[in-house]
């Protein structure tokens, strides 16, 4: 199979930029990254179809090798629709995030921060046992412990 090297280079650049942007904290950049990733992948699928050919509408007199491969195109169509839906959803979510926090950045998880600030000392498990743990008391109400009369 012959491969179009230009397509592959463009795919590589799109994917690299996409992954870089996705790692950002700013949500709009993440969105742009996801759109680049989607396009890069679509281009990659297109290259898998091999060399160009005529539209795959079956005519008996044309040899099978003349047609272009229709399957990657069908796959891309599905992938485009899915990317479109996800992009729309993300846009709505980013807008909602902006109305809630007036920031375009992903906030830290409060529960995560709490856990990371916790020390190894656990009050419930590590604190010294209080003196009067016994439930038995003598006539005057003083606690009775093992070995004492």
């Amino acid at each position, binding site marked *: *199979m012959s491969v179009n090297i230009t397509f592959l280079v463009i795919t590589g650049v799109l*994917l690299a930029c*996409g*992954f870089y942007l*996705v790692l950002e904290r700013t*949500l709009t950049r*993440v969105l742009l990254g*996801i759109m680049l*990733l*989607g396009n890069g*992948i679509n281009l*990659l*699928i297109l*290259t*898998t179809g091999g060399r160009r050919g005529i539209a795959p509408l079956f005519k008996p007199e044309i040899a099978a090798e003349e047609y272009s491969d229709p*399957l*990657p195109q069908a*796959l891309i169509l*599905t*992938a485009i629709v*899915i990317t479109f*839906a*996800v992009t729309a*959803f*993300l846009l709505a*979510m*980013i807008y*909602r*995030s902006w109305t*809630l*926090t007036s920031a375009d950045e*992903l*906030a830290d*998880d409060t*529960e*995560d921060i*709490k*856990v990371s600030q*916790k020390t190894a000392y656990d*009050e*419930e498990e590590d604190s010294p046992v209080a003196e009067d743990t016994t439930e038995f008391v003598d006539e005057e109400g003083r606690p009775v412990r093992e070995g004492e009369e």
Partner: protein
Amino acid sequence: MNFLDLAPLAVVLPIIGAGAAFLARRQVRTQRLITIGILCLTLLLEAGMVAAVWGGESYAIHIGGWESPFGIALMVDGFSSFMLLISTLVSLAVLFFATSQGLADGDEPGPVSVFHPAYLILLAGVSNAFLAADLFNLYVGFEILLTASYVLLTLGATAERIRAGTTYVVVSVVSSVVFLMAIAMIYAATGTVNMADLAVKLPQLDQGPQLILHVLLLIAFGIKAAVFPLSLWLPDSYPTAPAPVTAVFAGLLTKVGVYAIVRTETLLFPGGEVRAGLMVAAALTMVVGILGALAQTDIKRMLSFTLTSHIGYLIFGVAIGTPLAIAATIYYVGHHIIVQTSLFMVAGLIERRAGSSNVTKLGSLAKLSPALSLLFFIPAINLGGIPPFSGFLGKFGLLHAAVQDADPLTWIVVGAGLLTSLLTLLAIIRVWARVFWRRATDAEVPNQELVEQAASVAIETAAGGAQNPALGLKLAKELEADSLPWGMRYSTASLVVAGIALTVFAGPIFEFCERVAAELIAREPYISAILPL
């Protein structure tokens, strides 16, 4: 006509139901009836499917009559129908839970009551992913379930859920991108995306390209299945969602990834080239996950960490790859789906009963809510792997297979597995001791309401004295009934019972799993069912 020709209905019914439920969005009652009715129908259908393939048949359906490898095929074999049945069973229980919670809260309608339609679409996606015998159809199944899960995770769009949802969406999209990349490369290398056809053609490739394609698929599925180091998104995003949503996610979504990994390792790349990598990933998933669980004070977060941790056992089983190991993995998947879902449902009940799922604020629940403590205790020790429960049986099967394997690396992972099991028990017991056993007054941040209720129950018990010892219990039951609607309690209880049933009927179920594993490893039934001879 074969009964199994009806299998596509497992996908079609929920989608039609979702449409109908969306049309009925103004009539809450109708919507609820539609969703529950559809799920019951699907459950019956899938029970029929499991019965039909119980003896070990594989049956392929060619959609639209297009023969493989050109058309889209669906595969009904023991593995896919077992997963379908368990997933629908669990979703039905969670649906009752959610419905009952909604009923009790008076169903304040949001802008659009989107829960029921999104829930059905999620299930359609899960079913499609299980049935798919075509990599691209598997991708579509994943996308259907992911898109529905985005909606469910961000229900209500509060600040916390939007934050968690953003991470979840971005990670899921990236995993889908990696999956698509793998599909594109596989198509370029072999000229097909049909899994049976791939099973024949992939081994003909050179070692190098094979390894790249294999690892690419595993990375894509590893993100979805939450395998360390690709698991850290999960405990971050799951706990913020509403209780029923977290419960159903915990049960189903990661297992779809595990299902795909099992298929990859048994059908597409059966040589076990990345065995060592999988072993290391399994050990790290187990240990890192459970250490995370020990650090948490929130029950839902703790459970999310045990969820990722126990995925390690499944990956371990796949890595060993002997028939016994695969059989134990399949059994363990069933156990894990049921137990994790019931624990998340119980966490929802605790949150509702005591106003928080943070252990620092809880206490006295064993006195205040005896039924709830029983509902927590059974799945909890089941998760911890205490005999005779299914968690023990699954782990025993896995370790037995590992010991037969007798390879130094396997022994290390066995050690990690045992350590994880022990630490799971520790994590669970800590929650048990704090939430249920200690007095509410001893909590770090005592909850005034719980303290007062505990005091009044103690007074009642004292008043009953020796003549009427059940007086305090009666008050506790009344208090429990006030805060927890019966539907929520009974749906959770039914899932706990399902977990016990998995233990009681472990014999026939495990034999079934062994037949399925033999089929998976033989590969031949799958391939010849799909490809015309």
